């Protein structure tokens, strides 16, 4: 059947739409005809941990935390780079060793800069 070789796509789309919609429709019909709705302030509450929510959902975070996070991320990634370096330490040429040392130096430089800027000072 070369003329309708794409027919199965159409059928598949139909099945893919019907399959999730049919149970939803059945549930809706059931609710509509048999189940009396019983909403309430507790049932419609946003949180479901049993404790009543207090205050606003909007809270302000200290932007300093963001800098702290970025620094953590950089050194986290650095650690991943250092693991292959440490594993292959005894068998790498001098050039590679110097390359990694320069990479480390750049990072230490960044750390010194961040430190002198007061980024590590949590209470400031």
């Amino acid at each position, binding site marked *: 059947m070369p003329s309708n070789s794409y027919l199965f796509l159409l059928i598949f789309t139909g099945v893919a739409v019907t399959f999730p919609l049919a149970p939803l429709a059945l549930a809706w019909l059931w609710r509509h005809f*048999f189940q*009396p709705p*019983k*909403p309430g302030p507790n*049932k419609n509450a946003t949180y*479901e941990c*049993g*404790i009543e929510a207090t205050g606003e959902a909007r809270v302000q975070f200290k932007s300093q935390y963001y800098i702290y996070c970025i620094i953590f991320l950089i050194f986290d990634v650095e650690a991943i780079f250092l693991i292959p370096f440490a594993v292959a330490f005894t068998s790498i040429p001098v050039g590679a060793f110097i390359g990694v040392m320069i990479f480390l130096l750049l990072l230490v430089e960044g750390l010194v800069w961040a430190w002198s800027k007061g980024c590590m000072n949590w209470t400031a």
Partner: protein
Amino acid sequence: MEATSQIDEGLKNELKTQGIFVISMGELYNWGRRNSLWPLQFGLACCAIEMIAAAASRYDLARFGGEVFRPSPRQADLMIVAGTVTKKMAPQVVRLYNQMPDPKYVIAMGACAISGGPFKQGYNVLKGIDRYIPVDVHIPGCPPKPEALLHAFMELQKKIDGQKLSGPGRAEHLDPARPGEFPVPAFGAHDLEPPANPELFRPPVMERK
């Protein structure tokens, strides 16, 4: 939607021997929901350990369709009150019960959940969760063994199986007059207020002769 079919029992059994099952829609519906009871995943005290054991491989609650412990009340059908309900915890339990969608069922597991148990005299312990929410099955024991929880589960399934879905005497959750939420007790100066839901909790009056 009758839970009991109108068809003759003898004919039904005759057909069953031929491999033909005749059931009503109501029976099918009840069969489906009694075998897919999803408990709310929370434990209050040591009974919860027995509940965990009942859900684990040795006792295997999955045989009864109850292994899907839900961490959200919105997805749960069954609340297993497993353990001591302190007065600090009671409002949360009632609120979680209120947040469960109908139809919902409660198993009060263990001496503490049904009456306060060994801590009944304690100032901080609720003397039974049935003071605030309707309990379907009470299991005594301190703690009840997993077999006892399985027994309670089967009793609950029996109850669901017998529930009518329409007409007078239908299941409670289908009655529009029945409230969907029960009042959450508040922390008062000395005790929870109210100390019990008077519409729900009618303790037997002891007659002394």
